[in-house]
């Protein structure tokens, strides 16, 4: 994978949400979410079904516009500068975005070319995801759910975006592929990419994450530091900023902080956020 932007060289956070409200018709998807994700950070998004995890990622990807509040992704407005933002982010969504009549190779090639990526990276990405031999010439319609997921991941790996938005990345995957997702997140993070993972299975990513945030009712109600955080000490009784120390202070400036509610209760610092 090609190196993404260095975490320490860019002052703006990778994702910044302030009072983000998103609607589907009149139904609120997000109801005033506040979130800052620093460059190079790995953030785990937790929450019950329908809490707004997927909506949070779709808002970050610019697929859902905000009805109120502010958003900045990689320093840009993802709706107004959608092309510029989208080419720098990768979303692993519930759907695999595959065309059933195209082969695995054709699907990956189209997705990478459409996103302006380097097709020269495709063979290595396919190899990494175990997409080799006859599988490459297999129409997507004949793939299992897990294989479709692997293809979607291969697109992500080949594109090597600066911001990875992973929505339930382990869904439908076997044990080896789940382990592979872990490795891919670790590799992406190691080269400076920012990763936001929404998952019902936090134990699969928790070790890699700097922080976990809990989404309930379209709001981020708490956050805690996770396994990767080297300095997990609580610096403030009400707000914890557990992002890597390499992150510029300016990026930390907007850390989510407000009187709040939930306590997700782990061994790490628990934060109360509105």
């Amino acid at each position: 994978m090609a190196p993404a932007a260095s975490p320490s060289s860019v002052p703006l956070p990778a994702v910044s949400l302030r009072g983000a409200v998103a609607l589907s018709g009149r139904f609120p998807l997000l109801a005033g979410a506040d979130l800052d994700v620093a460059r190079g950070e790995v953030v785990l998004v937790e929450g019950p079904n329908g809490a707004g995890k997927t909506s949070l990622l779709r808002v970050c990807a610019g697929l859902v516009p905000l009805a109120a509040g502010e958003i900045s992704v990689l320093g840009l407005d993802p709706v107004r500068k959608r092309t510029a933002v989208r080419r720098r982010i990768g979303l692993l969504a519930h759907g695999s975005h595959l065309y059933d009549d195209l082969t695995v190779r054709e699907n990956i090639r189209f997705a990478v070319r459409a996103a302006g990526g380097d097709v020269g990276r495709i063979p290595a990405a396919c190899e990494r995801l175990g997409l080799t031999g006859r599988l490459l010439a297999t129409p997507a319609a004949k793939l299992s759910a897990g294989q479709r997921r692997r293809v979607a991941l291969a697109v992500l790996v080949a594109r090597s975006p600066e911001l990875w938005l992973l929505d339930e990345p382990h869904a439908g995957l076997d044990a080896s592929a789940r382990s592979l997702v872990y490795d891919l997140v670790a590799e992406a993070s190691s080269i400076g990419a920012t990763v936001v993972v929404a998952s019902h299975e936090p134990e699969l990513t928790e070790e890699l994450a700097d922080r976990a945030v809990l989404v309930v009712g379209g709001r981020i109600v708490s956050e805690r530091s996770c396994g990767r955080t080297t300095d997990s000490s609580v610096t403030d009784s009400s707000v914890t900023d557990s992002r890597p120390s390499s992150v510029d202070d300016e990026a930390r400036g907007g850390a989510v902080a407000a009187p709040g509610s939930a306590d997700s209760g782990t061994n790490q610092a628990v934060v109360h956020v509105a």
Partner: protein
Amino acid sequence: MWRDALLVAGKDLRIEARSRVALGQVAPFGVVALVLFAFALGPDPTPLRRGAPGLFWVAVLFSTVLAVQRSVSVESADGARDGLRLAGLDPAGLFLGKAAAVAAQLLVLEAVLGAGVVVLFGVRVTDPLLVVGSCLLGAVGLAASGTLYGALSAGLRVKETLLPFLLLPVVVPVLLAGTKLWQAGVAGGTPADGTPWLHLLLAFDAVYVAFGVLVFGPIQESA
């Protein structure tokens, strides 16, 4: 924009080449429609020949609805439309690519249906340039308007029924102009100067291509 258009058109045509929906289902549907028209008008060849231009274009219009629905449904499965949006493709390029692929399929359909009209209705083409020109311009206009209205209806649960309702009334100029041009270009038709009708087709094409280039992005984002 052109790079994106070529990429998307290539993808859609490759999908069509694999699935053969246009050739294997839409074209036979159009031919069946022609046969039904022939049954409805009876065995007398005179009304068949006289009505052939209009029947051809009605069959093309109905086939267009199916071809556009197929083009929309390709993007509806497995979140593919989101994939296109996330790729950051130029919306104008995306529109032109989708429309170009539909236009290419419509040209093939028109060739099949044109052959059907000649064989079934005994039509003899006297001015091939006029007939072919109307088919080319008609395909562009139908593809552009169809792609636009297909995108409008894409996010709706009732898209299958809404698309014909939206599309068929607005393509009446293509039906009129195409029919008049065919009447001028086949034996036994109404001899007429086709220029105004060619101009109408050109204007229709220009309006819908320009409109699509401008508004496809916002439509795609809100669908």
